[in-house]
């Protein structure tokens, strides 16, 4: 099908986003065509600004508009606990719970030789630096509950052993509100492994 170059470029742009195939990209591009000029300008501006103005927190590697993010600057937070997560979106999920009042450390992924991601490619050196700071008493490992996330957590726990800090791993298993009857065998097994005394 023939399409003028500007719209082809726009379709290509959308298609680079996760979960968007050729058809959806086309639909989005034509939606943009129909939008008001002003709205399109705002949208384009937002895209440029997000890359230009957003920084990475020098302490926890969270995204921020300052050198040090709001969470790290917040005096009311407990600086003796650091929760290690893979991605910023995990931080957002944790924050939504409003249950955690410590600090974070965003690794930027999980160790995976296949993906070419070693400890060096992740924000592990900066984590160790933070741990040398005497204030930290507990490290919560909240990497994903898959093989790579698990391996990364195991690696970190070996690595920080010399620091003598308490290291914990978040439990995973049954979703709350789910019926035991409908949980699959794999999830149930995991939940059993993570059981605790009450």
């Amino acid at each position, binding site marked *: 099908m023939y399409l003028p170059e500007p719209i082809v470029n726009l379709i290509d742009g959308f298609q680079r986003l996760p979960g968007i195939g050729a058809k959806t990209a086309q639909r989005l591009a034509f939606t943009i065509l129909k939008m008001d000029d002003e709205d399109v300008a705002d949208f384009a501006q937002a895209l440029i600004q997000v890359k230009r103005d957003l920084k990475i927190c020098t302490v926890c590697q969270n995204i921020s508009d300052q050198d040090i993010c709001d969470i790290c600057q917040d005096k009311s937070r407990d600086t003796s606990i650091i929760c290690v997560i893979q991605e910023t979106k995990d931080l957002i999920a944790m924050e939504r719970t409003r249950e955690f009042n410590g600090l974070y450390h965003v690794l930027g992924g999980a160790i995976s*030789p296949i993906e070419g991601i070693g400890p060096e490619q992740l924000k592990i050196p900066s984590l160790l630096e933070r741990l040398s700071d005497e204030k930290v008493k507990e490290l919560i490992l909240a990497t994903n509950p898959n093989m790579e996330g698990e*391996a990364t957590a195991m690696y970190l726990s070996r690595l920080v052993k010399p620091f003598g800090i308490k290291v914990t791993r978040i439990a995973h298993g049954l979703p709350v509100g789910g019926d035991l009857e409908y949980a*699959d065998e794999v999830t149930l097994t995991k939940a059993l492994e993570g059981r605790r005394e009450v």
Partner: protein
Amino acid sequence: MHVTSLQLQQFRNIPELDLSCPEDLHLFVGANAQGKTNLLESLYMISLGKSHRARSLQECIRFGEQTAMIRTRTEARSKKNRLELKLLPKGRKIKKNGLEVAKLSQYIGTLPVVLFAPEDLQLVKGGPQVRRKFLDVEIGQISPAYVHHLTQLKNLLKERNQLLKNLSKNNTFPLTFLDVLDEQLIELSVSIWRKRIESLARLQEWAEEIHLSITKGEERLRIEYIPSVPIHAQMSEQDMKHVMLKSLEKVRKKEIILGNTLLGPHRDDFSLQQNKLDYHTFGSQGQQRTAALSLKLAELQLVKEAKGNFPVLLLDDVLSELDDSRKTHLLESIRGRVQTFVTATGLDGIDLQTQKQAVVYHVKNGHVTRA
């Protein structure tokens, strides 16, 4: 377990099929290359999410088409399911009762099948990978956790092999990470071993009995698991882990040089023997065929024992290969109990009683018609 209907669209050389098949025995007759195996393959695929013979799923999409579809209705006791597998230009989509299934481990076992085809002789004659695949398919159908562990092992081995290759090139990866992957490998290996050893023991009991009966008491079939690490059935999990850890330590240097994981369930095997003689080396072609048949019939029993229902049996072109006594034994043991889909190039060699009980179809150039 019964497949009560089968619908196909653009599957291999079958453009369209709509079959109502609640009966026990179905016999598909046709010349070579008409689509008989394709039909059984579709049932195997909707059961296990993959083909027994295709290297890629897309191979099964009819030439010149973009997608293919398999739909079945199944019934076991009064429990009914609607299953759907759509083959896409990339990947596949599986639905159970209209809901998309994300993980194969949540799906496999819904419609257990056992396929018996001439190439199953390779179970006895062939290499270890044929027997491992048999074990994995068979145990997978009765244990979702096993399927999950196998998937994890596959991913772990990819990571570990890559790591070993990196280490051999003095890449900056820390050796501690290999310790971590070893810990994961040990953990997974032990759960897979436990399941395999346990299932083989049950399989052995059934197979021995069946084999004695087919050979009229002459041959006592033994099945023995051959692990790549010196573990055995009576060991505790703790001991197995310890043995594997020690074994991994011993081969570490070699593994790094070769860039390959040398120990684990992916390197194991089992043997079929009689009086300590391996059928693989000492059996005649006839004996090997009987051993393979016994194993398959034992598989039927194992699934029945674990799931409460017999699986659906797919017999591809095997009746012509079996002599009368083995054929009789096979047909006797399934009659009225196991829903069976049989293919054959002709009706001769199939006894009249079976012919009378079966729904007979003709298969020609991808079209199936009831006789």
